[in-house]
């Protein structure tokens, strides 16, 4: 089995077989990060450019570590320090980077479709590290890896995704992926944060957290973007957290062996109470560890292999 694609742009375009291949490959990369010498020569001589037009610590660091542990040369470019501030367009930036012959470009951009545009323009592999409100495929893959590790598979699982669904590329990518893998997905959020045609994605739609998390095997809490406060989608953090925070009181509605996930960064006391974020149900740090392995697997699978 081989990954048929040059680029990883979204979970929507991946088949079940491809998702399994990526997750299986990632499992073999986990061990490298536990070694004393955390480096293998697999991608020696390959160059990975991390092109980040939006703030990120976790994803960018994770890609950088993944590349370095495989011996690739990784270069980070963030919008604030690049020619973008001088007015260069995305396409011109990409063309110039292409001319320096990298092997993979990892891109995060606030505009949905920016990675797709790049992938059409340039020869190199493009990996989407988050585009607007569209997709965040590597996050969904690391979430699926974490779920598969903890639950042994996806069939029959109920996954509740809660929070600002409308503005969440994490939710969208996870819904595509989890549905494909055979899980049931329920979403919950305030009406102002719920896309109108949400049920067309094949998910249960709730406007109360309690309904969505009842009997859930997995509860995935989304980060509330505090910068959106007062933008008329929610009145105050306090009101939001009184209705949509996961805490000691409501977690009992979920299954006894529920796992709690969060893509980070966590707003403590807003969407997750601290005792839940640090509690026995939380797999948040496993997600971060698996993120490195998933990204190593993707860098490995998309490089080389040209006939």
């Amino acid at each position, binding site marked *: 089995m081989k990954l048929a694609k040059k680029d990883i742009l979204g979970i929507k375009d991946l088949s079940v077989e491809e998702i399994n291949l990526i997750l299986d490959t990632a499992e073999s990369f986990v*061990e490298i990060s536990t070694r004393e010498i955390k480096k293998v020569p697999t991608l020696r001589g390959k160059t990975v450019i991390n092109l980040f037009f939006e703030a990120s610590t976790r994803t960018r660091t994770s890609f950088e570590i993944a590349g370095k542990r495989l011996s690739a040369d990784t270069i980070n470019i963030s919008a604030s320090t690049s020619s973008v501030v001088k007015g260069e367009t995305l396409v011109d930036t990409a063309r110039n980077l292409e001319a320096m012959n990298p092997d993979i470009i990892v891109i995060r951009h606030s505009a949905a479709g920016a990675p797709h545009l790049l992938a059409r323009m340039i020869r190199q592999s493009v990996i989407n590290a988050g585009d607007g409100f569209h997709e965040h495929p590597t996050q969904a893959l690391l979430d699926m890896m974490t779920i598969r590790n903890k639950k042994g598979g996806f069939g029959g699982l109920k996954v509740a995704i809660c929070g600002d669904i409308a503005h969440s590329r994490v939710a969208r990518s996870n819904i595509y992926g989890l549905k494909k893998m055979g899980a049931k997905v329920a979403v919950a959020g305030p009406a102002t944060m719920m896309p109108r045609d949400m049920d067309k994605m094949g998910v249960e739609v709730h406007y109360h957290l309690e309904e969505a998390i009842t009997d859930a095997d997995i509860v995935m809490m989304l980060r509330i973007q505090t910068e959106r406060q007062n933008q008329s989608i929610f009145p105050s953090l306090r009101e939001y957290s009184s209705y949509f925070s996961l805490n000691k009181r409501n977690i009992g509605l979920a299954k006894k062996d529920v796992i709690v996930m969060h893509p980070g960064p966590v707003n403590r006391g807003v969407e997750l109470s601290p005792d839940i974020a640090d509690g026995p149900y939380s797999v948040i740090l496993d997600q971060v560890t698996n993120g490195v392995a998933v990204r190593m697997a993707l860098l490995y699978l998309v490089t080389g292999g040209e006939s």
Partner: protein
Amino acid sequence: MAIEQKKVVMDADGIDRSLTRIAYEILEKNKGVENLVLIGIRTGGVYLANRIQKKIAIIEKVNVPTGILDITFYRDDLARARKKPHPEKTDIPFGLEGRKVVLIDDVLFTGRTIRAAMDALIDFGRPKLIQLAVLIDRGHRELPIRADFVGKNLPSSRDEQVSVSLTEKKGQDEVVIERSF
């Protein structure tokens, strides 16, 4: 029309006797089991390592630490490979610093797998020494590598296929040499 010639060059008893002899030779050369570890190279080498571990346990009443090595990350043909080989897990749950490591594989051919394996081992620490045990040495080396313990030397031509089948990987214990015209 393709005609296939298939010849069994080693049967179950032959394999077992070879492994018994290799187990004794390992102990003789290393003067016992002190600091000794076995590392099987995926996939055939892993089964052979487990069998040699059992034989050593019978002789010395000691279970020698045994690990599994996947060499995919160290291959020298990754950049050229059309289809990415699927890496499996490496499992070496002990340190190699100062150990006497016996690397075990089923067939020694070009030597490139062993080169990759040695590079991988050194990333786990600095072993005191590395020795190589193989069930079959079929020649045609492309690198300056030789085995310390050999089950059977099998002169072969490059277009022949030598395959070791073992009961652990759904087959019977035998070594087969095949040639297709």
